[in-house]
């Protein structure tokens, strides 16, 4: 394989503003997702993920505007997720300038949504976001959670990822809820079991804390590595993550 490992920063966006924004020296407004996206782009991000955590549906208009302004200025792929409930939401995000849309809770409630979206817009732009946590008693040992990890579903996470692929999604964004926020490294076991079950690209998310955390996730089977807080808070810079991967013999851009 000659394709590079993708390093992807994730921005939590609430009513058009970045949550947990940091003060990079070169950033005028840490709360502006568009400016933040430009900084990440300049630092070598291979893709961007916006996670819309806006609670009120009125503020969704702001999200479309943010996506529109970002797509006009940042020429790398942009995935948008959070609160996507219907095929029409997918359409609006794509038409606003998103390259891919990720579905999570709504897809668990109605899996045919994945199929409809993939058939209408193409697999390449539909991402299944799986929030998985350890749950003894499920066949794989991991269950799917919804509502940002607050609700267990009893659904086996590995079986769900495989089902998503069957329904036509082009990529899996795998969030390890147990590792999320711990900065103790990715959940390698979770990555391995999901990798064994799917052949679409896999983005590992949750747990990145230091430069040495990224290569093991790639070895476990991730095609891309995503992180939020370490980039937000400036603990790690994207360039440094890529240098570490390169020094470790992985292909990066």
């Amino acid at each position, binding site marked *: *394989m*000659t*394709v*590079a*490992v*993708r390093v992807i920063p994730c921005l939590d966006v609430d009513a058009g503003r970045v949550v947990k924004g940091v003060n990079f020296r070169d950033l005028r407004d840490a709360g502006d997702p568009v400016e933040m996206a430009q900084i990440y*782009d300049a630092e070598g991000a*291979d893709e961007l993920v916006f996670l819309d955590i806006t609670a009120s549906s009125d503020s969704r208009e702001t999200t479309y505007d943010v996506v*529109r302004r970002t*797509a*006009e*200025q940042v*020429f*790398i*792929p942009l995935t948008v997720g959070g609160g996507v409930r219907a095929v029409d939401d997918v359409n609006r995000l*794509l*038409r*606003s*300038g*998103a*390259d891919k849309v990720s579905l999570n809770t709504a897809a668990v409630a109605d899996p045919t949504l994945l199929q409809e979206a993939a058939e209408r*817009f*193409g*697999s*390449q*732009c539909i991402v299944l976001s799986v929030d998985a946590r350890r749950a003894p008693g499920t066949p794989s040992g991991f269950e799917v959670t919804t509502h940002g990890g607050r609700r267990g579903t009893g659904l086996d996470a590995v079986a769900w990822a495989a089902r998503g692929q069957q329904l036509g999604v*082009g*990529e899996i964004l795998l969030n390890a809820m147990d590792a999320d926020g711990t900065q103790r490294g990715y959940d390698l076991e979770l990555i391995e079991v999901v990798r064994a079950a799917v*052949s*679409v*690209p896999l983005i590992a998310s949750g747990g990145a804390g230091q430069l040495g955390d990224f290569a093991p996730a790639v070895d476990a089977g991730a*095609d*891309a590595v995503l992180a939020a807080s370490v980039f937000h808070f400036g603990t790690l810079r994207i360039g440094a993550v890529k240098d570490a991967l390169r020094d470790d013999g992985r292909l990066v*851009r």
Partner: protein
Amino acid sequence: MKAAPSVVVLDYGSGNLRSAQRALQHVGAEVSVTDDVGAARECDGLVVPGVGAFAACMAGVRGVDGDTVVRDRLAAQRPVLGICVGMQVLYDAGNEHGVETAGVGVLAGRVERLHAPVLPHMGWNTVTPAAGSQLFAGVEDERFYFVHSYAVAPTGEDETLAEHGESFVAGVEHGVLSATQFHPEKSGAAGLHLLQNWVLSLS
């Protein structure tokens, strides 16, 4: 000062066209996104975009008479740039799940599913530019952003190649007909440079 080259991004209902429009504007073109056949015939450069399924894109292209416009433009030596599935539909045919769909047919070859352990081929990959490539001048060693599961096997013509599981055509430069399997509008500075090479060739 000479007027900026006019570029039309053919709007036949396929995906995100905003990025292509902005990227081309960024490198100096006067860009409109339209399904207007007259504009598509008359502009200095026509971009045929495309994401998703070959059959759906081809139906969309035909729906706006894009196939005729492309053939007429090439006959009149007017530049055309196909991007991703917009490149694929320029070939003779595409085969998806055993169903064959005829393409515009201005390039000889068939679009088939890639053989690779992970599909879609998604991410930044290297290319081997065709000898004397104008499109890749200055960005020969850069990576470009790909997202596709189907491609054309090398035809033996002088073409730009890339590899994912197997070798495939990543770029075509046949006279006024250019095409890329990757998304230059999503390939950061390298992609903008490539688009600029194309836009400069229009004037």
